Every structure is written in C-alpha cells, then in structure tokens.
C-alpha cells in the first residue's frame, strides 16, 4: 500500500483546528504532552492545556468538572492508564453523568510493544463499551482520526476515541465521510466479510487482496464505532456469508464480541474472532506480537479459507430483513 502515517499527527492537527473554531475546546493531559503529540497545541493555546500531572482518576474527574463548567475537554493519556486506572470515573463521572467529555486513549492496543502487558491496552474496548451512554470509536487512518475528532466534538456526550501510534496507510478513498455509529464498506465481496477497525483495517484489506488471488471474494467492513454498533451493516454482512472479526484487542468483549452479539440475535452465521487470545503478551515489538498472535494479512487469509471451507455445505435459512 501507500505511505505509512502516525495518526497522532492527524489527532493533534484536528484538535488545533477544533480549538481555533471553538473557544470551549480544551485539552487535559497527565504529563503526556509529548506522548499525546500536543506540543503544538500547548504552544498555540497555553491556557487551554491543563496538565494534571500523573493522576488519571483526577484527570477524568477534572474533565467532568470542566464539562460542567461549559467547556469541551479532550482528555488525553495512554489508553492503558486512562481507561484502566480511571475506569470508575469513566463509568460514573462520564457515562452515568452523560458528561460532554472526549477521552482520547493514546497508544492503545499493543503499541507499547516491549514495554509489556502493563502498558498494553487490549481490554479498553470491553471496559468502555460496557458503560451506558458511552460512544466508542477506533479510527483506522489519519482521515478517519481527524473526522472522528470533529464528530466527537460535535456530539454532546461522552466519547472514547481509541487512538494508535502504530504506522498505518490511508485506507479510505478521498472524500470518505465518517459518521458516528456507521460502518464503512471499504471493499465489496460475495463469500465472507472481514470486519475490522483501527490498525487492523489495513491488514484486513491486504488479506482480502490475497484471498482474491485464490478466488475468494472477501468484503471488508471498517467498524470504527464499536458502540453504538452498526447493526444494519452487520446483518447485511451476515446475510451474505460468514464473518471474521479482526481487532487489536482481547477477543473477550471487544469488536468480535460486539459483532457476535448482533449476529446471534439477528442472523446467526459462523464467525471467527481474531485478536489477542485472552493471555498477557510475551515480550516483543508490536509487529512481533501481531505475528505471534496471528494478526497478519496472511493469517487472516488462512482463517478465511478455512472458514469458507467449513461453511461450504452450510445453507442459511431466510434473510431476516425479508
């Protein structure tokens, strides 16, 4: 594919754009000005960057208070600490309170690689999507990161943006219009659907290209919004054939779980869930860990071939949509 990007650049550029247009926009950080790529923001709006120090519970509470005071805070920190350390504040001060706070979970998934499981954030989707009133978004490339930031700012309520520092190519065509709660079909197909988000979308597209060479037509659905999930797009995919979900997250309660919840209720089909298999990762770089746990285009390809073969004799009854 094409050039690789660090989506944090699109994130910080979007935050500056938003702050220029709306004086209510502020950034809150936990000593993470550098890791959240907010040096330019700080220079531009020194009074609108609030550094609370290394104190995530306080940071999320302060975010709720800033929103009570009429501001629109983007609360930015490494996703592992922002969600895990402050989970009760996310539940009560943001979700239950319906506070207009945007959580930006930086370096999510296994982006911190060799730093190990303490710094991996592969449970954050399960945690945040279990909380009522939360909107949960996992952008896949710079354009979607920027669009998700603008959509989050325009939406009145708590949003968790799960961002990455892993290099990714552009996966969306020019003119792509992001909508909260809507999946984006990036590639049509007739045999099965690959549903992915975040840094796994480009890998799903690569897998689909590999499958095409073997005569398998795989659709690729980018499911950036995990809550509320796009039920219509999932039911359409299920009506067509089996589904593989691919996520940079544990398979317990993440994207795969969210998709499966819709599939089993609305249109049961065979599924495979690719992700981290419910164990803490060994030492290794992100790319090493993706290889180790099979989150590569080639392994997606193999999983797809196997699933299509298993489903060869299976026929599905009626399309629930009539």
């Amino acid at each position: 594919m094409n050039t690789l990007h660090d989506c944090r650049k699109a994130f910080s550029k979007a935050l500056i754009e938003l702050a220029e247009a709306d004086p209510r926009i502020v950034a809150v950080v936990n000593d993470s000005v550098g890791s959240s790529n907010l040096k330019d923001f700080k220079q531009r709006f020194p009074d609108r960057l609030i550094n609370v120090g290394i104190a995530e519970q306080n940071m999320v509470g302060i975010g709720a208070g800033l929103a009570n005071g009429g501001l629109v805070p983007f609360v930015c920190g490494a996703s592992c600490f922002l969600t895990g350390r402050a989970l009760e504040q996310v539940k009560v001060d943001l979700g239950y309170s319906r506070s207009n706070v945007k959580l930006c979970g930086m370096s999510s998934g296994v982006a911190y690689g060799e730093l190990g499981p303490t710094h991996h954030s592969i449970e954050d989707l399960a945690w945040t999507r279990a909380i009522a009133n939360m909107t949960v978004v996992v952008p896949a490339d710079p354009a979607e990161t920027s669009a998700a930031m603008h959509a989050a700012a325009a939406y009145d309520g708590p949003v968790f943006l799960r961002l990455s520092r892993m290099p990714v190519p552009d996966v969306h065509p020019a003119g792509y219009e992001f909508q909260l709660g809507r999946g984006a079909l990036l590639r049509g197909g007739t045999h099965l659907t690959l549903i992915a988000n975040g840094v796994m979308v480009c890998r799903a597209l690569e897998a689909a290209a590999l499958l095409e060479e073997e005569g398998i037509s795989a659709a690729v659905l980018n499911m950036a919004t995990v809550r509320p999930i796009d039920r219509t797009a999932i039911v359409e995919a299920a009506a067509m054939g089996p589904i593989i979900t691919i996520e940079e997250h544990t398979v317990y309660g993440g994207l795969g779980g969210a998709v499966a919840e819709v599939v089993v209720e609305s249109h049961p089909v065979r599924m495979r869930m690719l992700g981290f298999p419910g164990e803490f990762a060994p030492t290794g770089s992100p790319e090493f860990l993706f290889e180790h746990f099979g989150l590569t285009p080639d392994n997606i390809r193999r999983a797809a071939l196997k699933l299509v073969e298993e489903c060869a004799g299976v026929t599905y009854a009626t399309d629930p949509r009539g």
Partner: protein
Amino acid sequence: MQHASQSPADREVAVAAAARLARRIRRHSLQMVHSAGLGHPGGDMSSADILAALYSGVLRINPADPAAPGRDRFIMSKGHCSAALYSALAEAGYVPVERLSEYMKPLSMLNGHPDRNKVPGVEANTGPLGHGLPIAVGVAKAARISGGDWRTFVLTGDGELQEGSNWEAAMAASHFQLDNLTLIVDRNRLQQGDRTESTITLEPLAERWRAFGWAVREIDGNDPAALVSAFSQIPFETGKPSCVIANTRKGCGVSFMEDRAEWHHRVPTAVELAAALIELGEDSE
C-alpha cells in the same frame, strides 16, 4: 452577592434562616429514610447545618434556572447523604417538597445516590467516594479558563478522604491556585464501620490540607453562625483554595443518634422517628 460586606443584622438573618433550614433538612431526612426503609441518616444529620448554610444565602443560584452558566456550583461528594441533599434542594425550590416522599421508591428520580440528569440542582453524580473533589477542581478551573465568576463548593465526608483521588485533586487545586474553590469536610469522625481514627488515621487533618497548599479553617460544623461566618470570608487566602474542616457530630440533633456509628445506615423505627421529630421541634413560625 452581599457576603463579603454583610452587616451584623444581615448576618443574624442569615444565621436564623440557616438554623430553620437545618431543622427542616433533618426532619425531612429522617422521614425519608424511615419511609424508604434505608438510607444514611447519621451523615444526613451531621451535614444538615452545612447544607443549610450554603442553601440559605451563600450559593448564588436560581432554582428556576438550574443550568444557568454563571451559577455557583455545589457538589455533594458524599452522595450517600442524598436525603439531606434532596431536602435542601426541595426547600430551595428545585424539587417539590411533596416529592421527597418518593425517596428511593421504584422509578423515583430520588435515587439513593444523586443523578444530575434526573434531579435539578444536582451538579454531579456521586456515590462512590473520592469523585466530588476532582470534579469540583474541573468546575473551578473552567471558571478560570472561561472568565466565569462562579464559585465552586464541594462537601466531602471525612472517612472519604481515605480515597487517594482526593489528594490528587488537592495537589491540582493548589497548583492551579483555585481560590474560587471551597471544600467543606464533614468531620464527624465516624465512618461506616468504626471511628475514622481507629480505621485509618486522618489527623493531623488541618495540617495535611495546609501542607497541600490550602487555606484552612476549623469550625463547629453544626453551628449555623460559625458556618455562615466562615462562608462569608472565602477565599481565606488569595491564590489558595479554601478548606473548611467542619467538626460535626454524626446524628446531630437527635440525642439517641448522636455520635453513634450504627446510625450510619440504621433506619429509625416509627417510635424512634416520632421521638426524633419531637426532639427536633417544629418551625416556630
């Protein structure tokens, strides 16, 4: 408002109003807890005078416009004392007083812990301890950023200060020089299971707050005159957040409840309720 330059006559009126409101809060709270069959009457009673002082003239609020951007904010961090909070809000005009009888009844907006999306005048959803002060720091900081002149008040329990999030917020408040923020600690010296000092020592509490950069006053938190006087003098020091350590008695106002740990969440029987209401007395006017 007028507080900085209150005349002695104004002060007397404010103190009398606070004392009257405190009695009503206590009467409502005990009736609510009795009717609901659960609640936290000990803490409702210890904080009644603090709430009464705030809601009888200190807070610059308009119950007809509960979301007015420039309003003073009061955050009840000890959300389990919701009966006292709802009573104060009802007497202030946010909620019809008749609706207090719905406390904790099925589908009531008056949940055991307050919900700002259901009850006008509630600023923050609290219940888990250690949430109110960080939120209050954010509210006070928002005033600084947006140029608002509202003041932020937050009431915590004392046992609640065992939660570490309070101390994260304490550091931030003094670092940000939030002299538009006032913390009141309901220092009743009892927590759910035991005395605070037998559980995890809080003393020297005033010294601890001073060490964290706060301006501290210790007062009798069940004395409306002391409360009104303290609130008329905030900020205690320019550039520092203010901390009022309100020394209170759990169950204050009812002899058989005072300073007894079991009234943290014991429910008065009909006989106990009747005896308590007699002790508290009716409004004289």
